[in-house]
């Protein structure tokens, strides 16, 4: 990676007496789109708020282009933030919302208008200038929020689950438009999500955060090829299975339920059904682990309650290492 634009070093944060961030190290390159993934409560939003200057870490350092900004107020950082709620000014038009940052930066009215109009073009909202924010759909409001953030000409934009409140059919289109608009301006972004499909689709690199620590960092391909620890593998949707002395991660599409006598593991069938355009079977292993298999829609699964064997291909051996706090297999009830 080129010299980092944003660098986070050994960042700790304690909120209400609980350690929420624990020694976070993270670099973000110019123009890079980093997806920060993790389950709820893993510390993603706190990390973003520390970077934005809305919360102060208890230890560590944040620098932007080599300049220490750890204690700099939010309005002097030049880092934009988008939340799942677009948070538009309620009594202002779309154009007035987008021109807010240029006007705060004391550029002339005509220049602010030009910047705002350009930004609205980037998010494909030409012709919406005079509409009030409340008259827009959720997806359109989120586009206005992005245009408003872009118009501030930040070097980094932080996206905190911006598509969480968007209908699924609009979400896909919005993801692509956001990515394109940011790339066109060369703006780096950290995109927080707990949706692994979204993170893997959008991120140049993906960081997986668990229990306040970054447990894995790499390109989506790298991460899917070598998930590293069991907890990360489980978060990425792999089955984590014992295989002799080793523990392996297996993609559900590489997992099969067979006759009990033929399996590498034995399990009990729990449920099956269609998910999207695939058919999914779920079983419980002997030690309580959840095992998922995926196939085409016509796939026939053993009856619920039946004893089955589990077979797999393409196992990825997980590093033994120190067990994570989240490594305990989630038990299926």
């Amino acid at each position: 990676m080129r010299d980092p634009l944003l660098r986070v070093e050994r960042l700790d944060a304690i909120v209400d007496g609980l350690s929420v961030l624990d020694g976070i190290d993270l670099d973000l390159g110019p123009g890079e789109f980093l997806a920060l993934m993790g389950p709820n409560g893993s510390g993603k939003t706190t990390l973003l708020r520390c970077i934005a200057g809305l919360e102060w870490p208890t230890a560590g350092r944040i620098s932007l282009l080599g300049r220490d900004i750890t204690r700099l107020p939010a309005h002097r950082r030049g880092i934009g933030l988008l939340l799942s709620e677009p948070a538009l000014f309620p009594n202002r038009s779309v154009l007035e919302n987008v021109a807010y940052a240029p006007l705060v930066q004391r550029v002339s009215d005509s220049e602010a208008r030009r910047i705002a109009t350009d930004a609205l073009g980037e998010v494909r909202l030409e012709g919406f200038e005079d509409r009030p924010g409340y008259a827009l759909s959720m997806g359109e409001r989120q586009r206005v929020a992005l245009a408003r953030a872009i118009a501030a000409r930040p070097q980094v934009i932080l996206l905190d689950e911006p598509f969480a409140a968007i209908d699924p059919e609009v979400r896909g289109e919005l993801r692509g438009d956001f990515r394109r608009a940011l790339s066109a301006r060369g703006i780096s972004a950290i995109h927080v999500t707990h949706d692994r499909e979204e993170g893997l689709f959008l991120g140049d690199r993906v960081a997986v955060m668990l229990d306040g620590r970054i447990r894995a960092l790499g390109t989506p391909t790298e991460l899917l090829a070598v998930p590293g620890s069991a907890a990360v593998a489980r978060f990425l949707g792999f089955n984590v299975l014992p295989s002799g002395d080793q523990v392996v991660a297996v993609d559900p599409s590489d997992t099969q339920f067979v006759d009990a006598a033929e399996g590498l593991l034995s399990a009990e069938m729990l449920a099956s059904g269609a998910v999207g355009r695939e058919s999914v079977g779920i079983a419980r292993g002997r030690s309580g682990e959840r095992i998922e298999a995926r196939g085409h829609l016509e796939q026939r699964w053993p009856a619920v309650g039946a004893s089955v064997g589990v077979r797999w291909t393409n196992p990825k051996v997980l590093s033994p290492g120190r067990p994570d706090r989240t490594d305990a297999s989630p038990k299926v009830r």
Partner: protein
Amino acid sequence: MGIAGGRVAHGSFGEIGYLAPILLFVLLFALLPVAILFERGWIDGGGAGMFYDTVWREATNRIALFNSLEQGALSAAIAFALGYPAGVFLARYTFPGRATARSFLLLPFLLPTVVVVIGILDLFGPGGWISSAVPVLSWFGEGVPGIVLANLVFNVPLVVLYTALGCESASGDLEESARTLGATPARVYRDVWAGPSLVGASVGVVLTFVFSALAFASPIMICGPRCYTLEAQVYALSSTFLQPTAASLLALAAVLILLVPIVGYVVLANRLKHRDSRGPIRPRPLSRSGWIGRSLAAEATLVFAGIAAVLITVLGRSISPVDGGGFGAGWSDLVSARTTATLGVPIARVIVNTFGFALFAAAATFVLVLLAALALRSRPRWEGGISAYLFLPLLVSPVLLAFSLAEFWRPILGGETTVWILIGISQAILALPFALQSLRVPLAGLSPAPSEAARTLGASRWTAFWDADVPRIGSGIVTAGLFAFAIGLGEFTATYFLYVPSFTTLSVAVYTLQRERFTDATAGAAALLLVVSLVVFAAVVWAGRTRGRHRA
């Protein structure tokens, strides 16, 4: 059970039956008597011409009108100046004891007016602790300054409370977005939360104006006739000068004049209620704030310390000698023969009366509010209309309420022995709007799912309400009852209008003893009333916190 057109589907008019008692109670004991009083005054007085003569051309009434406007405006302006910074501080900063400070803001609703007036006189009046040490400050123990100071003790917390609510109604997400867009703290204030906080403060300021313009205890105890407000003048006309027609016309004028600020209050409160507050503001630790946060903290501390000082003085005066008595003279003089002679009944009877009326008000309010909750639970869409209807008694001042009850109901009920009914009813009417308010929040956040589940399991509507809803809003209902009890304990104006010596209450006793310059016994009675009110206040806070835990 299903939802049909926004209401929970039922096949009967049961809800109207549950609502009928509270609707009838307000109609029969507030709206109807007042309407008939106004109608009689208008007809007996000769209509519009007499109305003009009574209100404007009669000098004492005109002075009362000016006094109301002057005292209301001064109190409102100073309450804003003192309350706004403290409200901002409470909403936007975290610090140890924040929850306790928030609870403290409820105290003015429950504090007997006579106790506060006695506290002001004990500090700044003749022989007061502060006026003795710094004589120039005796200015605050007499006339309009003293009245305004007493009004402030009640009303600054009101402005603080509503300012805090206004700040909290601003969008935290919008504030954070503005900050990351480069807006300075001053710009964030201007663009994001100045509006909501000022709307909130305005609600408190308007209420302060109304309460101060209708003040009764402070003008009559601190100043006398030259400072009478409309409320005190209505009392004087009806009870002292025996001019019921003039009194009813002046009361009508007071209602009409105060209609404007009251409508303003309703509009502002509605605006505050319906603000988009998605993403609540996140208060920051005081320890991390700069000079602004520390200045706000200092100002808020002064406000709270000032109120606490008044209350501590009342307690202190009851045990320190004033009239030459020994330690604890205030308390021992309460049971003296002179006190009994002054009041016409022994203090024990006064205490029994006080608790009896308060219990009557609390019980009536509890039952009425419980039934109303059951009806509103099933028909949430009625909530706006019912609240507006039950808000109407707020338009009726305590003197007007007592005056109309006496004129309408006393001839029907008969002699003095039935006065206790009217006192209890007046206290319940005055407590109802506040009691219902304490139920609105838990009712609004109440999920219908448990009660609907109970109904599908075969429970009757009442059983489902009792088993599924009451445990979740029970502390709200208890708070409503406690509120009514506390308001009844300290109610002075209506009670003073209606009482006869055998039904003297503690607040009336405080006023009577003070009027007779029986200083130590006054201090003792005021301290006793304060202690009881503080105990009930603690119970209200406890019930509120229990509710918070249930909701969590």
